């Protein structure tokens, strides 16, 4: 383990009964932004839960900011966690929820409200601060979840699929927020199954597959491989047919279908496609596009290819 490591693990393993969640992982994560990339079931969430002290290692050890994490609540003064699950106290307003959690961080009543308001502003939710979380859209729920993780200004931010379900503008804003956060000397570990999300945040990645770390290093090394595979994007819009009409006008689109009220597109050039989608969303102030997700099978195809080769 290196001295400067933000997170380090030694022969870290986690079993859920007979199922292996993480298999003998030894790694050292340096400061800055690190992306954890892998398809569904790769072990990303298990690794993040071990790093955040939600799970106890079956074998091996994990240290975060130089300290052991399991049974060490003081570590959460310096760590912010944005979990994957869409779970909230739905009857609370966004601000009430943040203030309540900040009070558990040690903030006084007024300071908690002030820090809560500031965090909601950072994720562009100030107008929904006094609205019940139960009435939030999926994207708003993602953002309020992010707000609770940054509100106490932690040194290390751990985000499990933070961009999932956000609309293109919120996605862009969140990426910008996380970049600014990292530029101020703080550290971020972010997981995703979408390379382009990670790529927008950092070039530093950990590739995971079947509970193991396949590779550590620069995202550009696997970039070309990814581009060889078609990428599926699910877009929810108030006017899906008009959106589809706009999208088919471009030659990077391989296929398009409607399913459960959403538009599913396959593109050969995800970078170009995402840039155009964000542009379309920005040009339409009515917020026609309200949710963008990327199914897990994109990366699975690439990993299958990598493992076979």
């Amino acid at each position, binding site marked *: 383990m290196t001295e400067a490591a933000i997170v380090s693990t030694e022969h870290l393993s986690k079993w859920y009964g007979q199922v292996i969640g993480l298999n003998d992982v030894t790694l050292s994560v340096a400061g800055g932004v690190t992306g954890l990339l892998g398809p569904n079931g790769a072990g990303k969430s298990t690794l993040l839960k071990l790093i955040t002290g939600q799970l106890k290692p079956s074998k091996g050890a994990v240290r975060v900011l130089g300290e052991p994490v399991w049974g060490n609540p003081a*570590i959460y003064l310096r760590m912010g966690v944005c979990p994957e699950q869409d779970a909230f106290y739905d009857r609370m307003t966004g601000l009430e929820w943040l203030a309540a959690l900040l009070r558990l961080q040690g903030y006084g009543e007024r300071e908690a409200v002030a820090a809560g308001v500031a965090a909601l502003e950072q994720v562009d939710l100030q107008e929904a601060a006094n609205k019940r979380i139960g009435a939030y859209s999926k994207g708003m729920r993602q953002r309020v979840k992010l707000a609770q993780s940054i509100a106490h200004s932690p040194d290390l931010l751990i985000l499990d699929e933070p961009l999932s379900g956000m609309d293109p503008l919120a996605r862009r804003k969140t990426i910008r927020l996380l970049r600014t956060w990292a530029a101020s000397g703080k550290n971020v570990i972010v997981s995703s199954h979408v390379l382009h999300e990670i790529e927008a945040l950092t070039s530093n990645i950990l590739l995971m597959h079947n509970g193991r770390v396949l590779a550590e290093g620069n995202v550009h090394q696997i970039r070309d491989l990814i581009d060889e595979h078609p990428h599926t994007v699910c877009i929810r819009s108030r006017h899906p047919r008009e959106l589809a009409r706009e999208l088919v006008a471009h030659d990077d689109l391989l296929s398009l279908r409607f399913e459960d009220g959403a538009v599913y597109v396959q593109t050969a050039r995800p970078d170009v496609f995402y840039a155009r989608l964000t542009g379309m969303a920005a040009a339409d102030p009515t917020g026609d596009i309200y949710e963008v997700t990327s199914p897990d099978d994109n990366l699975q195809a690439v990993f299958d290819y990598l493992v076979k080769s």
Partner: protein
Amino acid sequence: MSADSTPRRPLSFLTATLRIFDIAVGQLLWSRRTVFMALAAGGPVVLALVLRALDASGVSALRVNGARVGGPVMFGGMIWLLYLRFVVPVLGAFYGTALVSDEVDDRTITYLFTRPIARGSIVVGKYLAYLACTVLVVLPSVMAAYVLLTPIGGGSIAETFPLLLADLGLLALGLAVYGAVFALIGASVPRPLVVSLILVFGWEQLALVVPGYLRQFTVAYYLQSLVPHAMPHDETMTAIQSLFSEPPSAPSSIFSLCLILVVALGFAAHALQTREYVLEQ
């Protein structure tokens, strides 16, 4: 808030407990179980209303061995059989088990587990919220039943008022002890509600009628020895009373109940502190 004013020390156990209490009170009052709590606490009041209405209309509602049963005796029976044997343990089971398991099932426990607080403070804070909520709902229901029933057959509220105070204390203690026991079950086992209901309607009922020392391993044994009311002299009632022919003394019962409460809550806090909760995705 700037990073400089960010707290850099974890909260003490007591402060964390009180802050969890703040969050949990609202959660409990708005939980799915609130309707059940209202029914459990409101049922005896409705029954008391019916009995009072029957009395007012000249119909003698309840007779034992041909003799008309007075209001204070009816109230005593209600405390013994309805509140102590049903309302208190069932509320304890429904709420006590939910303290931790609801957060785990809803997957919101992550937000509490990733705060700089001792995990044990989560269960203690929630337990105190449970106690506050149930006491605030059950005790007024008891008082309402008392006011409705006592005047039947010429009972005096002034004379029996000390008994009411004893009843209120007894039920609050019952809610506290059952809540702690079920909080432990909720923090320790899967499907805690099923286990708790088996404990209430299986183990406690069985152990109380089996001769020997088994009854000492029930909460009901100690609670019922503190009931200040005499039961009506009916054969069935007398048989029930005979089960407690050698009840422990009041101080011994109170000590035992307090011991059960502290040990159960301590183990519940320990379970939360050390147990790993794997949330369903």
